């Protein structure tokens, strides 16, 4: 009798815990941080509004940053030196050989220090083929560079702009708002792709592929990461006013289904609040192990949640899809920019002005460093024909590899002009079988798979051989496609 009561109690506890996991969309309240990682705060120049919205690092250990106020600064040997000023709310910086490219609202500007006194003396208009209408939300993000020397950036839509065309919250008054663009090495501008909303982060993979993030809102049910490809449409319809064959009137009449059919699927959906509200740039860990075991993976900061999360790419049937998983939280301000330096440190540029952040500070600069300790975390997730293979950074304790240590659920999102979407068709998933690999680091989970769902797997009960539990116990896999059987 006593045993039965106890069993029932545990079942109730598990049920309530599961119900909480299943239906809450809250941000994790706990501090999560892998073993061996810590945040270091960089002191920024006194009495300067130092909202860091662009970062790049040079080979000699210099860190160039640009700020929303319009400055460019160099941080070297723990000293700050101003390099340029007077720019129009920059949101991107790229060191390009002997000069620096800045993405700011009206143009991409190339800054050159001709007399080598450490201060830029030439501000060239490198590209400005889009229109900026003085709306506060018309940011220019980028630039990043591909293997052929071409540059890419993205153009934010406007908000509360009376002259703009809108089908929800955000609008376009034309001039390629809501577009991604390409600029040749000589500076020739081309509109490249469209359907973007608030694409606050763009990055180039080590292979030279371009990816970008977009922020949740109208026509973006939850934040997402896309592969950028020429001529593609990414879901927000108002930019179509600049595309041949569309007019404002025609767009007003088009059904949602038509936009949905044209839209590219994201590589990953990023669950709102739980992972991110306003993701920044994708940054690849190219440090070859200097930053720990996550080499080759993508790190992204979130401006609202003041956290970092990872993207685990999976190539399925020749196309990218994959998963997101939180990495670290409790940063001091809104994490909008991330950049690795040559020593394997991850620099994080921060701002919270106008859009609040979990971290209480209005702006700043921090970096994440790794001390060599091997953490116990999920390393990777890959789709299999019968479920998923989860690989961990450390050998698992065999006795924790039981079904009760894990649970799973799936859902999808509703695409519309409404501001974001709740989880739709939220369903718990039964795990059929779990099998530990020979090296003890991976588990194969057999479970039902349905395309076009986000699958969340919780692995709270797993332990490593040292008895450690993970700091982040949820991974979210965007299952655009199932593996085609050969």
């Amino acid at each position, binding site marked *: 009798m006593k045993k039965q009561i106890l069993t029932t109690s545990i079942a109730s506890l598990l049920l309530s815990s599961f119900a909480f996991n299943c239906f809450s969309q809250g941000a994790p309240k706990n501090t999560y941080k892998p073993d061996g990682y810590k945040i270091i705060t960089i002191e920024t120049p006194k009495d300067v509004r130092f909202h860091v919205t662009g970062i790049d690092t040079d080979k000699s250990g210099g860190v160039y940053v640009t700020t*929303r106020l319009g400055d460019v600064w160099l941080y070297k040997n723990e000293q700050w030196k101003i390099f340029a000023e*007077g720019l*129009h709310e920059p949101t991107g910086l790229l060191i390009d050989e002997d000069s620096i490219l800045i993405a700011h609202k009206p143009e991409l500007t190339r800054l050159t220090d001709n007399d080598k006194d450490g201060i830029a003396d*030439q501000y*060239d208009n490198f590209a400005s083929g889009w229109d900026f209408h*003085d709306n506060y939300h018309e940011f220019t993000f980028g630039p990043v560079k591909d293997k052929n020397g071409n540059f890419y950036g993205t153009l934010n839509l406007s908000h509360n702009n009376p002259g703009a065309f809108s089908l929800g919250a955000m609008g376009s008054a034309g001039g390629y708002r809501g577009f991604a663009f390409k600029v040749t090495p000589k500076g020739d501008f081309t509109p490249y792709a469209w359907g973007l909303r608030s694409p606050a982060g763009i990055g180039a993979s080590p292979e030279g592929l371009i990816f970008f993030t977009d922020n949740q809102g109208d026509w973006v049910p939850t934040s997402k990461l896309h592969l950028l490809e020429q001529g593609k449409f990414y879901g927000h319809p108002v930019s179509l006013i600049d595309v041949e064959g569309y007019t404002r009137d025609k767009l007003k009449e088009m059904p949602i289904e038509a936009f949905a059919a044209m839209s590219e699927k994201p590589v990953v959906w990023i669950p709102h609040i739980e992972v991110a509200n306003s993701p920044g740039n994708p940054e690849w860990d190219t440090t070859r192990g200097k930053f720990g075991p996550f080499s080759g993976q993508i790190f992204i900061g979130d401006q609202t949640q003041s956290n970092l999360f990872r993207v685990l790419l999976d190539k399925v049937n020749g196309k990218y899809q994959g998963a997101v998983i939180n990495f670290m939280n409790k940063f001091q301000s809104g994490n909008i920019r991330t950049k690795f330096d040559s020593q394997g440190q991850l620099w994080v540029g921060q701002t919270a*002005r106008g859009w609040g952040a979990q971290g209480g500070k209005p702006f700043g600069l921090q970096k994440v460093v790794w001390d060599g300790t091997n953490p116990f975390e999920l390393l990777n997730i890959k789709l299999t024909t019968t479920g998923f293979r989860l690989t961990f950074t450390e050998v698992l304790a065999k006795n924790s590899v039981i079904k009760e240590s894990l649970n799973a659920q799936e859902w999808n999102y509703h695409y519309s002009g409404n501001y974001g979407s709740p989880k739709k068709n939220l369903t718990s998933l039964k795990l059929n079988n779990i099998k530990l690999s020979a090296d003890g680091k991976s588990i194969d989970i057999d479970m039902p798979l349905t395309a076009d769902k986000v699958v969340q797997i919780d692995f709270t009960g797993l332990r490593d051989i040292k008895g450690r539990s993970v700091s982040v116990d949820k991974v979210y896999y965007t299952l655009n496609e199932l593996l085609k059987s050969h």
Partner: protein
Amino acid sequence: MNNLIKKGFNIICLFSFTIYAYAYDSDLNQKLKNMADKQEITAQGKVLFEQVCASCHSKDLSGASGFNLKDGEWIHGSQPSQIIENVKRGFADAGMLAFNNVFSELQLQSIVAYVLSKREGFEGLTYKIYQMEDANDKVISAEKIIKTGELASNLPDFQLPEIKHYAIEFEGDFYAPKDKDTKIWVEWGRPIDIDFYTDGEKIEREEPIWYPTWKLKKGKQHLKIIYRAGDNKPNQRNVSLIVTNPDRTIKLFPISTRAKDILSDNKLEVKATNQTIILRKTIHKLPSYSISVGLPSKVNYAFNTRSCSVVGLWKGDLLNIGPNISGRGESPSLPLGDWLFRSPETLHLNNTDSKSCTYKGYKLVKQEPVFTFTIENNTFTVTALSKKSDEITFNYRVIDNKNSSKFTVKLPKTNSLIWRTPNGKVTKNSATVIPDASGNFSIIATFTK
């Protein structure tokens, strides 16, 4: 007995004096208020204020090292008689001189009249909190009042209620600018159930949905605000009320505690003191793509990268960039001086238009920006120098001139400037110039006021 009589006499004297003083203050209050309505007096007061008071209290009275003199908060007394007394005596500890021996009585009165004429916001503000039945209860009635009071800050505080279902009413005399149309603006106001009444009449709510506005009358009026919390979330209940110009491009002053917090970051004045400053910001009344340049001589101009022309010239300090860098930065930066000309009047090479001009960038030469642009295969540079506070020289250079040896520069229509050129001839609204052997020519403007 004698003592008693004496004491009684003293009491009567003191009483009489108090009545006399009260009557005197009351008369003076009324007199100064009347003077505040007389333009010829406030104009004199304005001149004196700007000469002496503006350095601490700001030219627009919004405060700097000294207090804000426009809002409803008066630390040393809000009555006109108290204000003039404070000006006369000064506050030595706070670094304010006593002005009783500096100005005549009439001059002092004109200064106070000017200050009173610039009054903004509430006076004698009171509030009432109503206990509502639930989130859907819309009915305001006297029996639901649970708390009333006065607000010495004269600033509505929407965080006063400590209950879930409530409505709050604020009421008082209200000073809107006398000389321009203004509106009350509720940022993110779509879900906010709020009504405004001026002199007893309900004001119509205007679009846009997310940023609704309500038109104010000019000058003094009685204003009542009723807000029903309904099912608003906690952060929505702390309502931001800001008085703006009609197109909402300038946030004039806050009329709620939250708005005051928001606007506290609304002022960051950038002034060129010992070197030229170049700033790219959104600027009120100037077209997009204008680069502002502040010269230490207190002369400022804006070069536009789309039209490759000078689209504005103003005297004074460069910009208050606060509105453009606080919050989301929705509002434009505000030029701090007086316009000599501005767009659509421009200074440009006659064959310049936005279609044919390509902006190349600028170089810093001895800290001055030299802008480069091309028009029909000709490359030009322009920079400006100003050695005196009443003159500016625009130095043009033609590089790789392929078409012409003679150029026309279209001049802005303005009575504030007299134009000349050492390289040709100035007619009414243009200058015809022949560049020298190096391709240089100059256009010089002298300020007439």
